[in-house]
């Protein structure tokens, strides 16, 4: 092995070690001071969310497809909430498909959206934008 190869291997090894430590912290992080765990009902909702590709038109925290609106805080938005969500699932407005969910499934999706809502804000309109480009976002459980 010549020197150049050796150097490359050393650099890569160091980087990979950093990567391992980094991943360890991310995978085991508590994500926030008051982490929210999804209930089993919400987990069923998540399953339906994936199976029916809600994500292909909707976003959560701005991530997903863009044909429909973001749903992070639809549960707590003024004049929206549980019945409003169910109404959309029943009727299929515009490009949104009409779904044939049982009452239990609709409740599960609502529970999923409710628990997402409790994790934070999006859009985070009260965030504080700093001059050096950083954004101090507002967390939901901080007072």
């Amino acid at each position, binding site marked *: 092995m010549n020197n150049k190869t050796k150097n490359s291997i050393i650099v890569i090894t160091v980087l990979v070690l950093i990567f391992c430590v980094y991943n360890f912290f991310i995978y085991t*992080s508590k994500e926030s001071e008051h*982490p929210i765990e999804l209930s089993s009902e919400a987990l069923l909702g998540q399953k339906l969310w994936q*199976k029916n590709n809600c994500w292909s038109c909707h976003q959560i925290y701005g991530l997903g497809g863009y044909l*429909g609106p973001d749903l992070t805080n639809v549960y707590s938005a003024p004049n929206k909430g549980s019945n409003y969500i169910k109404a959309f699932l029943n009727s299929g407005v515009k490009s949104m*498909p009409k779904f044939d969910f049982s009452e239990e499934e609709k409740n599960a999706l609502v529970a999923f959206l409710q628990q997402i809502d409790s994790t934070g804000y999006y859009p985070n309109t009260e965030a504080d934008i700093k001059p050096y480009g950083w954004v101090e976002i507002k967390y939901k459980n901080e007072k």
Partner: protein
Amino acid sequence: MKSKASLLFITFALVALLFGILFGLFATVQYIDPDFLKEYVPFSKMRPFHVTSIISWIILCATGSIYFFISKVEKIPFSLPKLPMIHLIVFFLTGIGIYISYITGNMEGREYFAFTPILLAPILIGWVLFGINYFITIRKNIINWPVYYWMWGTGIIFMIYHLCEAHLWLIPSFREHFIKDMSVQWKSYGSFVGSWNMLVYGIGIYIMSKIKKDESVARKKTVFFFYFLGLINLMLGWAHHTYIIPTEPWIRSLSYVVSMTEWIVLVHIIYSWKKSLSLKNKQDNCMAYKFLMAADFWVFLNIILALLVSIPAINFFTHGTHITVAHSMGTTIGINTTILFASVFFIVSKIRNEILTFKNFKISYYLFNVSLLLFLSALFYAGVKRSNWMYFTKDLPFSELQDSLYSTYIVFLIFGVCLVVAISYLATVLLKIVYNTLKA
């Protein structure tokens, strides 16, 4: 290994590309007419069809190209000569499985991997086979690797890692923690793209060094520096997806710092621009070279956009809008697809033993580049309007925003059609040549 497996990879890649852009077109029509064939080609199916086909194009073409370069251009025999064909068969059957899973609505997966998660297993097997063969072969035959061998090797390993990471949600205790789950999900996507970029950029450097007949392109200290910088960003710099998710602040600040190192890349591009343009080479009219030049231009535009949206204060406004799509399609079409077209043109000129010159492809080449620019501009404009709607209008319903963007979506569709025409022409010509070689 005969060139059969590598050329079949490229054939399937081109077919996936042709299907992929058609699905994209169908998806776009629903922006304009939400009821258009809503029952048969709903957006919720067309988007995953589009994105999966397009990712397949990138990955299959990159894989086929690497197999071809090693065995046919470098003339290094693979240590395990049967594996490429097995790899191909595994991927082919998995591809069929994915489409069946989509058509029948078994889409329990998540964005980008919407198929039923069992199909992850054969995908991983394919990559492991590729990796084993690659490392054994290259280690045995080459000492002092040029940078592209490092890049391909890195790409393969991190691809395997991040494919697994993207499926950590399958572990129940993991997906219960919604915020962590979501940030790891998008971390993995950022790095997944970083991994295929290692494969594709490596291909770009490879072809450039062959066209210029100058190995130093792939051996200089600076290219190694940029390779390591790219690797750091692959590992730690998936920032702009997740600034807005309420994770712990250190995760977000670290990503900010890491992604800002990419400014070095931008400065370097501007600095070395004149040198690369003033290069006079008798081959500078060949198609492969032309597409590499186009990639240069798109790298420049996209890196500016990527750098800007990686600044949290800007990301705050662009995140969750079509500016993100402009970024992702801008890079996957402008950079990945152009480099891969360069690669296929290079391969075709090798198998036919003649160079395909720019003359015959002028129209489609310009149509491709110009319509891409306008296509992305329309997306960008839609993104600005959406951002304005999110942050500066109060209580305007979503449907009114969509209505106000009607003419923008029409423009998007028109240039989308132009893009489809240009890509279809280029892909069909290449497909014909590759197919005829396979038949002969």
